[in-house]
């Protein structure tokens, strides 16, 4: 091929590639696939973008196997490797996915961190995604430590990948959101947002817009690093923007120093704009921006101003070199030199930018937050109300010492600043403001999620409540808050919050399985059925719908159907630990304890921190009376979730079964402190006291319980038993009759177990005379099928004695 032919081919392919990306971006995968196939045929070479493009089209059409076939031949570029790994993961071929990412077994013997660094080097911009995928692979192959490292590395590269943060929390780590959700000096914008080539946006090159408005695809590199001589030409602009942003923190009174500077700023966007003749060429900051001179050739006027500034602004010295560096670097990079000039001679652009920056500060500062708040919130340990003021230019290293003065200066300037020549730089600031604001929201949410993952629910709720309204009133946040209340066993509040969420986002399914379980706890059949109907209409084949349906049938005591639905849920997503837990519970209900054990164990294999499954296992062992095993598992659940009073109850019960009453009491006390509304803790405490013959204390507990749950028959039953032991026959009978009132059927079966009917015929006559509530009980007993109604009833009201007493009296009667 001749040169010009080659050139034309290359150019035409660029056009076709853009056409294909255009189709993909407009969700027209069919056309894109066809075009990509033609392009591949045309290009004929086995490497390069055409193949990757075709593979992308296949992937987006759901044809992972085809995508794999293509990529296997061409996985040279980082993007191809990433896509190949993703396809393999979707096809559940974890080993191949790992090989694709790590390029064979070469690095398996290196320490993990080295491997991760290799990945960063190999993948460059898409390293964060590769690391996230690798983290997932490690998680699925039970290499948890490596998974944690991979996720953590990934987050450091790109703080926007919240799912990686979630995975870290779920693995049991406590990653500090402040540390992760912030922009760092070494963050490359191309890593965060993808390079210009991939993002198919159009560069708007009107006069009004600055190069800064293209900011996003750029590398955001800061002063000290020489990597500023970046590949991407647009990086220069970003650097300048950063420098302007940095100047937000400086309280410079530049306006007073003359309008001359405005001349410059006017020219600068124009100059920049004029550079950008074609969409493909990135706007370059040429020396013209700085008055057409090199660093050494700054015009006199600006430097004067700079000197003035220097005089006025001692507290900001610290930030200056840093900031100025950037400006310098931008010029240097545009000029191709690498000299890092630390002297403050940035030129007029910086001053003007500063002014512009300040203007935008005023414009975009919210009435809620001032820059002061901004500073405070950054330095405070807890993220309080998210300040809405612009946070641009804030770097972790530079701001702390200058806070107070800066803010004062800033505010002065805000008042004093007059009109600016153009709004040019503002979009860039907006972008950066929004990044900072966004990251602050992510920090808060991250912290809340971390607390939730460690079941520190009250703290989580506190933080969620502090989110700004616009974020609070969203599905994710409300679901998280609902889950927090759910974990606190406060099902009523949880339900209320979930219902609020459903009103906001009626078609949201994620998190609704928790709502269905909350309804199950509250035994609200109507609401649960309604929820199931609605979820079915949204998506019959989602895991959450199947789980909700299973809960619904379980509620209706139709456990076989419930099992069917939970099995369906498992088929839909065999990595869902909760589905296995619920399935395990249903098996236990249908007495299939072996199946129950298997299901719970699978749930634990999928998610080690799934404390419900640990509890389930423990309770099966408890049922089988293997108390030591039960205790072991309950303690494991307790270790994962030490805040739940229900878990503590279980632990206490198993301890009691092992005859360790003191420890049991200690745990119960803790449980009651954690959640005073939980009647079961008190009930268990009363039971233990009764078992240890501390009747007076037991009575005290029971009195309190009566206040707490006046309608609970078991309370009266236990009180009756205590009185029996104490010999207060009349009180005993009174309580038993109350119990019968409240729960005739339940009481009936219990009394049958506790009594010997033959014996009670003698006692019953005495009891029936003393009890005055026979009539009421007659009515209550009418529905019972057994023929010996009257006898039973009398026996029931009669002296419900302990086995010991019964034996004694039977001896007497004999």
């Amino acid at each position, binding site marked *: 091929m001749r040169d010009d032919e080659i050139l034309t081919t290359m150019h035409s392919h660029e056009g076709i590639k853009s056409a294909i990306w255009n189709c993909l971006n407009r969700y027209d995968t069919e056309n894109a696939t066809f075009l990509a196939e033609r392009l591949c045929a045309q290009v004929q070479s086995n490497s390069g973008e055409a193949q990757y493009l075709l593979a992308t089209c296949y992937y987006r059409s759901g044809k992972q196997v085809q995508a794999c076939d293509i990529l296997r031949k061409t996985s040279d570029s980082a993007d191809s490797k990433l896509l190949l790994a993703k396809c393999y993961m979707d096809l559940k071929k974890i080993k191949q996915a790992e090989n694709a990412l790590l390029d064979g077994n070469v690095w398996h013997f290196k320490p993990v961190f080295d491997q991760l660094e290799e990945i960063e080097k190999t993948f460059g911009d898409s390293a964060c995604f590769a690391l996230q995928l690798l983290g997932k692979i490690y998680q699925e192959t039970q290499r948890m430590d490596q998974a944690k490292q991979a996720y953590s590395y990934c987050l450091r590269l790109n703080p926007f990948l919240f799912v990686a943060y979630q995975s870290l929390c779920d693995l049991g780590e406590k990653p500090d959101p402040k540390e992760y959700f912030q922009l760092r000096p070494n963050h490359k914008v191309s890593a965060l947002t993808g390079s210009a080539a991939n993002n198919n946006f159009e560069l708007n090159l009107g006069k009004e817009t600055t190069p800064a408005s293209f900011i996003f695809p750029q590398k955001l590199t800061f002063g000290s690093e020489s990597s500023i001589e970046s590949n991407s030409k647009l990086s220069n602009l970003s650097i300048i923007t950063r420098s302007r942003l940095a100047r937000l923190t400086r309280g410079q009174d530049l306006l007073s120093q003359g309008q001359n500077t405005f001349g410059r700023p006017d020219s600068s966007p124009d100059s920049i704009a004029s550079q950008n003749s074609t969409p493909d060429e990135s706007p370059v900051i040429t020396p013209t921006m700085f008055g057409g001179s090199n660093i050494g050739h700054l015009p006199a006027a600006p430097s004067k101003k700079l000197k003035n500034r220097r005089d006025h602004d001692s507290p900001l010295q610290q930030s200056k070199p840093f900031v100025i560096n950037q400006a310098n670097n931008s010029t240097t990079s545009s000029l191709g030199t690498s000299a890092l000039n630390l002297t403050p001679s940035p030129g007029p652009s910086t001053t003007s930018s500063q002014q512009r920056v300040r203007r935008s500060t005023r414009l975009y500062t919210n009435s809620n937050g001032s820059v002061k708040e901004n500073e405070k919130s950054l330095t405070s340990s807890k993220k309080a109300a998210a300040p809405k003021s612009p946070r641009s230019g804030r770097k972790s290293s530079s701001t702390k010492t200058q806070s107070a003065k800066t803010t004062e200066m800033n505010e002065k300037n805000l008042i004093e600043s007059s009109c600016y020549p153009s709004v040019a730089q503002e979009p860039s600031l907006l972008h950066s403001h929004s990044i900072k604001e966004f990251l602050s929201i992510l920090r808060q949410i991250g912290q809340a999620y971390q607390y939730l993952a460690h079941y520190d629910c009250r703290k989580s709720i506190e933080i969620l409540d502090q989110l700004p309204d616009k974020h609070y009133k969203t599905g994710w946040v409300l679901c998280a808050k609902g889950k927090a209340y759910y974990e606190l066993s406060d099902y009523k509040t949880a339900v209320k919050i979930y219902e609020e969420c459903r009103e906001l986002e009626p078609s949201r399914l994620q998190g609704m399985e928790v709502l269905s379980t909350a309804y199950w706890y509250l035994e609200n059949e109507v609401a649960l059925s309604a929820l199931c109907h609605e979820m079915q209409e949204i998506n019959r084949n989602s895991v959450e719908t199947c789980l909700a349906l299973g809960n619904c049938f379980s509620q209706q005591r139709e456990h076989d159907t419930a099992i069917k639905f939970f099995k369906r849920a498992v088929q839909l997503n065999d990595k869902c630990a909760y589905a296995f837990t619920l399935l395990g519970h249903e098996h236990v209900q249908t007495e299939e304890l072996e199946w129950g054990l298997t299901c719970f164990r699978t749930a634990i294999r999928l998610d080690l921190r799934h404390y419900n499954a640990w509890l389930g296992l423990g309770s099966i062992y408890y049922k089988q009376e293997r108390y030591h095993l039960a205790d072991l598992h309950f303690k494991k659940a307790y270790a994962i979730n030490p805040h739940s009073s229900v878990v503590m109850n279980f632990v206490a019960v198993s301890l009691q079964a092992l005859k360790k009453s003191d420890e049991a009491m200690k745990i119960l006390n803790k449980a009651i402190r954690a959640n005073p509304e939980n*009647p079961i803790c008190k*009930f268990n405490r009363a039971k233990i006291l009764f078992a240890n013959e501390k009747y007076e204390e037991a009575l005290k507990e029971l009195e309190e319980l009566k206040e707490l*749950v006046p309608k*609970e028959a078991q309370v009266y039953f236990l009180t009756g038993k205590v009185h029996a032991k104490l010999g207060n026959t009349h009180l005993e009978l009174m309580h038993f009759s109350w119990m019968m009132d409240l*729960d005739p059927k339940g009481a009936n079966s219990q009394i049958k177990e506790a009594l010997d009917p033959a014996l009670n015929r003698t006692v019953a006559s005495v009891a029936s005379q003393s009890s005055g509530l026979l009539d009421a009980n007659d009515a209550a007993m009418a529905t019972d099928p057994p023929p010996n109604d009257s006898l039973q009833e009398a026996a029931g009201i009669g002296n419900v004695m302990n086995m010991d007493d019964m034996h004694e009296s039977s001896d007497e009667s004999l």
Partner: protein
Amino acid sequence: MAANKANESLELALEKFSKNIREVGSQAIWSLSSCKPGFGVDQLRDDCVDTYWQSDGQLPHLVNVQFRKKTTVQDICIYTDYKLDESYTPSRISIRAGTHFNDLQEIEVVELNEPSGWIVIPIKDIHDNPLRTFMVQIAVITNHQNGRDTHMRQIKIHSPAEKRAITLDLGHLSTVDCRQYSYLR
């Protein structure tokens, strides 16, 4: 007698509606004293009243139900239809229970008169509780019109439903407020 049975079946139906009953036949091993090929246990347990078991031997015809562990049996439901089966319809059924074949005791005898539909036989022990047993045997003593073989279309065994999910053994809690704290799902 029939009226009594009808009442009981109504009650039991209501109880089932109130979801206190579970069918436990699937946890047991079923065997027959004899059967015609193609008309055996599968047809007896297939949830379809059109297929039936046909015996092929001497009276009494036996259906043996052996559980893996001691199970509480609340009632046995048998579907027979005189209109379809005439002389094959059982007229006298004896229910026996015990630990194994040599340890069975008769606990219930039921007389039928041209039944058509489900017959519910409640099973109670001497204390009038549902019976806890390892094995149940349903014996057909005589058929209508003195027929030799018998048809049974469906048999179901019911057990009282266990307390819900995994809970601490606190007895039967009567309020939702308490119950919701007693398990963790």
